[in-house]
């Protein structure tokens, strides 16, 4: 027992000790005259001293004095063995053309084919010999770690998608060697040392040594891989935008890393769907130095596409899959050009403009008729900011340059003839988007009856004025509306319906009846005598799209929401979705390919497609053709089959390898096209990936980790010390770092020591005896 280790980790609260001290002092003060009256001065002094000493001892023990006690325990120390099972450990740059993992397992298990393994020279494998002196736990790790049993180790594969050895060490230190549950500090499970078998790969981007290296036990690292035998060319570290715009050049950059091919001239190609877009040649002058390779590419097609940078596999290369890196690119229209023509300044225009102007991808050209021929500004035209309406320029020359045309409460026949409206009709059929908003200058009230535009509308016009300010328009989602991309304000159908029913009622609009062929009613009047009258309707005409909103009061949806919900996000989303549908955005197409190919049981994969009719109901009777271009340029055609249980079409194929496949699907109902879609589909995850970017042995990381933790680095593959048996060396080093007997240190409360506690009893007993002897009760 070392009294120098006395300390006070915890005791009774200070206020209690002080209170007791006061009580004891007072008790002692009262006792003094009582004792002195009955016994002589010497005896009184002895009795009072004994009582005072008792009080002091009680207060002392209440303060919680504690001493440290050390005990030697005979339990074997725990050693955690971590085996790197990431894909880079499959590189065959060890002797006898063995992989790094095979070499590691040879050392651990002493396999029969591992004759050359140094650890095999003495009886069993390293693991068996360790177990004789230590409590050994084994775990495999890549980006996660898992405990390994003996039978697991016999069939271990190096296939992990990344390497994070520091995470595995931290989990081991925290007493969690890969088992389930969150890691926690558990001193009993903390390993006394860690044996790390790895090539030093790290895809977590950690700093070496890590900041918490001081909290790690000694880490003995065994380095695998051979810098001398390693030969590889890799392309990695892609720097490219995910999003690009049609016709706008983008720059792509990848890093080329070459080992063992100094003096070679390497051709590097940029490909798109297997076709070469451009090439360049890189002269390799130095080994192991990263070189940036840059390409410029101008996308011409809207949609998702896969580019790839690749270089041919060279003779003697150990890893082939990292000679190609894929670059997925989502290409959007450069700008959506919108033309709005408003019959008068209205709040509908104000809030629609506000919503459109928020989107930087929209290029808005708007004309508002600020005065009519009846209005008198009272000043000459030169004092006004008004500009003439360029009807010929707009309708005869520029119309084709707009993606969407919006007529907002605009009575076209007051300004130009049907000849111009026929141009709008042609524009729509040719692929344009057309939105017509209601108002007293729109639909029948705006003179569109028998005009060329009437023939393309998704509603049937009445042969009389159709504008009314006496309605209370509460839009109700139709069945088709609940599925349509314009109306989907929430992905959950019930929530979507609730959102729509929460919109404030509108107070004016145009009363028409639903259209016929191809027209789809998305929202209709929900109450009163106009029940069922269209509020929002769409129609596909030729290649184009027409959207009719039968009111000029839609701004109340914006402001009503602001009043009730404190935000106008739903109005903004609705406008954004209207614009996406009108501009023909692929995401709003009736034909969609789902992004992930699902693996089947027999090695095949299934691509799923959603094919909808104009009402966005599953088009069970559609003919669906899928063409698939693999990452190597091969093109495959295959039929798709309808699955009634899911309402989706499926096409099954057997892939040539992992990677991104470009799928293109065309769906027809009879002879009428429903739409088409192009999408990049991932099969079995991304080809290559971070693990393959740099598979050189990184022993420098292992060296610094061992040095900082007080461990030792041993290059297993190279066998630098041929004279000494490798397994002996590991055991010897481990013995030097981890003593065979653990010293247990624990806190011992002073009062729990028996002879100390005896004092507590002795003092009052002594006092009591003396009092009896001296005649005190």
């Amino acid at each position, binding site marked *: 027992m070392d009294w120098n280790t006395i300390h006070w980790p915890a005791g009774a609260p200070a206020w209690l000790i002080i209170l007791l001290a006061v009580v004891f002092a007072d008790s002692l003060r009262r006792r003094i005259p009582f004792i002195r009256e009955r016994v002589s001065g010497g005896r009184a002094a002895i009795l009072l001293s004994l009582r005072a000493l008792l009080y002091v001892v009680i207060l002392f023990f209440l303060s919680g004095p504690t001493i440290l006690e050390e005990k030697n325990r005979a339990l074997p120390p725990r050693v955690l063995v971590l085996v790197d099972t990431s894909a880079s450990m499959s590189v065959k740059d060890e002797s006898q053309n063995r992989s790094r993992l095979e070499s590691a397992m040879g050392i651990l298990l002493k396999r029969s084919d591992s004759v050359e393994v140094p650890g095999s020279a003495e009886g069993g494998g390293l693991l068996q010999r360790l177990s004789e002196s230590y409590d050994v736990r084994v775990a495999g790790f890549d980006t996660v770690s898992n405990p390994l049993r003996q039978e697991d180790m016999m069939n271990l594969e190096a296939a992990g998608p990344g390497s994070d050895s520091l995470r595995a060490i931290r989990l081991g230190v925290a007493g969690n060697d890969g088992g389930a549950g969150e890691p926690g500090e558990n001193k009993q499970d903390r390993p006394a040392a860690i044996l790390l078998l790895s090539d030093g790969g790290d895809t977590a981007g950690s700093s070496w040594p890590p900041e918490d290296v001081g909290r790690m036990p000694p880490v003995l690292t065994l380095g695998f891989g051979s810098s001398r035998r390693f030969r590889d060319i890799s392309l990695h570290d892609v720097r490219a935008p995910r999003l690009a715009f049609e016709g706008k050049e983008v720059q792509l950059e990848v890093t080329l890393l070459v080992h063992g091919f100094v003096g070679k001239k390497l051709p590097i190609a940029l490909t798109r769907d297997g076709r070469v877009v451009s090439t360049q040649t890189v002269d390799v002058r130095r080994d192991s130095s990263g070189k940036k390779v840059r390409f410029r590419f101008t996308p011409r097609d809207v949609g998702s596409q896969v580019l790839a940078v690749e270089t041919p596999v060279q003779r003697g290369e150990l890893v082939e899959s990292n000679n190609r890196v894929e670059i997925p690119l989502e290409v959007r229209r450069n700008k959506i050009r919108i033309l709005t023509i408003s019959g008068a*300044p209205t709040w509908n225009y104000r809030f629609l403009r506000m919503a459109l*102007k928020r989107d930087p991808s929209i290029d808005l*050209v708007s004309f508002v008729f600020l005065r009519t021929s009846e209005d008198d*500004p009272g000043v000459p035209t030169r*004092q006004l900011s*008004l500009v003439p309406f360029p009807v010929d320029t707009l309708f005869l020359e520029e119309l084709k340059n707009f993606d969407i045309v919006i007529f907002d409460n605009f009575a076209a026949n007051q300004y130009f003839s049907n000849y111009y409206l026929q141009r709008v009709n042609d524009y729509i059929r040719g692929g344009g988007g057309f939105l017509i908003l209601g108002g007293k200058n729109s639909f029948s009230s705006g003179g569109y009856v028998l005009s060329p535009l009437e023939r393309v509308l998704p509603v049937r016009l*009445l042969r009389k004025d159709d504008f009314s300010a006496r309605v209370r328009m509460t839009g109700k989602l139709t069945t088709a509306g609940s599925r349509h991309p314009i109306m989907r304000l929430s992905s959950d159908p019930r929530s979507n319906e609730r959102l729509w029913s929460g919109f404030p009622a509108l107070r004016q609009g145009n009363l028409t009846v639903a259209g016929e062929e191809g027209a789809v009613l998305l929202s209709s009047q929900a109450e009163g005598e106009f029940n069922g009258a269209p509020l929002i309707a769409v129609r596909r005409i030729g290649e184009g799209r027409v959207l009719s909103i039968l009111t000029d009061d839609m701004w109340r949806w914006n*402001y009503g929401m602001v009043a009730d919900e*404190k935000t106008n996000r739903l109005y903004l989303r609705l406008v954004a979705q209207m614009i996406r549908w009108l501009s023909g955005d692929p995401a709003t197409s009736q034909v969609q390919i789902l992004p992930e190919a699902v693996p089947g049981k027999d090695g095949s994969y299934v691509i799923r497609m959603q094919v909808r009719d104009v009402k966005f109901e599953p088009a069970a009777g559609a003919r669906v053709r899928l063409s698939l271009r693999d990452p190597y340029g091969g093109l495959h055609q295959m039929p798709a089959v309808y699955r009634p249980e899911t309402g989706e079409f499926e096409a099954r194929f057997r892939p040539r390898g992992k990677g991104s496949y470009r799928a293109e699907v065309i769906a027809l109902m009879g002879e009428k096209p429903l739409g088409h879609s192009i999408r990049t589909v991932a099969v079995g995850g991304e080809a290559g990936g971070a693990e393959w970017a740099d598979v050189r042995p990184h022993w420098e990381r292992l060296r610094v980790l061992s040095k900082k933790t007080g461990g030792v680095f041993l290059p297993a593959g190279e066998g630098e010390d041929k004279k000494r048996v490798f397994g002996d060396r590991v055991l010897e080093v481990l013995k030097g770092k981890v003593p065979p007997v653990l010293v247990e240190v624990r806190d011992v409360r002073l009062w729990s020591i028996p002879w100390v506690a005896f004092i507590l009893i002795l003092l009052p007993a002594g006092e009591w005896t003396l009092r009896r002897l001296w005649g005190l009760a």
Partner: protein
Amino acid sequence: MSPDRYWSRRNVLQGAAGLAAGAFAFPWAAFGQSGPETPSDSEESQSEIFPPGFVPGHIRYRGGRWQEYPSALSSMLEEVGNRTSIDVAGDARVVTLSDPALFDHPFLYLSGRYEFEIPSNKDIERLQRHLTYGGFLLVDDGLGFLNEGFGRSARELIRRLFPREPLEPLSSGHAVFRSYYLIGSIGGRQSISQALEGVQLGKFTPVVFCRNDLGGAWAKRPDGGWAEECRPGGEPQRKAAFQLAVNIALYAMTGNYKQDLIHHPIIQRRLNQG
């Protein structure tokens, strides 16, 4: 809608044209509903049949005097209706900041001469939301002093509405000076300042502050004459006040429309011509 407004030139012409064509049939007929109200119906029922697009909300507040000139806004609306294609109401609606109808009126008008009680935090939050999501507030100071009377309270209200966005003079190139007339001077009953002040939120100015008492220049007596004389500029100053009213109404309803590129060359040419 006031009777004057109902029998305005446009309404009469519209009615005549409709009758001449013999096709003035209302849509509810198709749905079996009774016909339209007659012109002799009350003002209230008429405004329900054709609620016009531009119905300013005139803010009523506590303290001070919220309505110095009861006829000011109807007179202003009449002129805006006569000069532009805006579909205007006969008069403004009176609203308080706690009124549920506040959000029915994207255009708000706040006027007076005397200090008033700053609204509650809840009402200020409502007004702030109104203006942040597309609304507009015209503050018309009938006294025109910086730190006295109405101006003092109004500035305090604006400071509490937008603590981070100061009230600043609008540049001469601001869209409010070009939204209809090419405005060179700020009219009003008085001529305290030749600048408008405003609070800028992004690219829009949801609050415009005028110190020249616009309402005083717009207001009429019951006999049709002007309620106040405009000093010192006389009738040209009143004319400028109405032109500014038109521009402010159009700015509120079209935003920065006149700053779109397509308008630049013509506006610039006319400005250069003087």
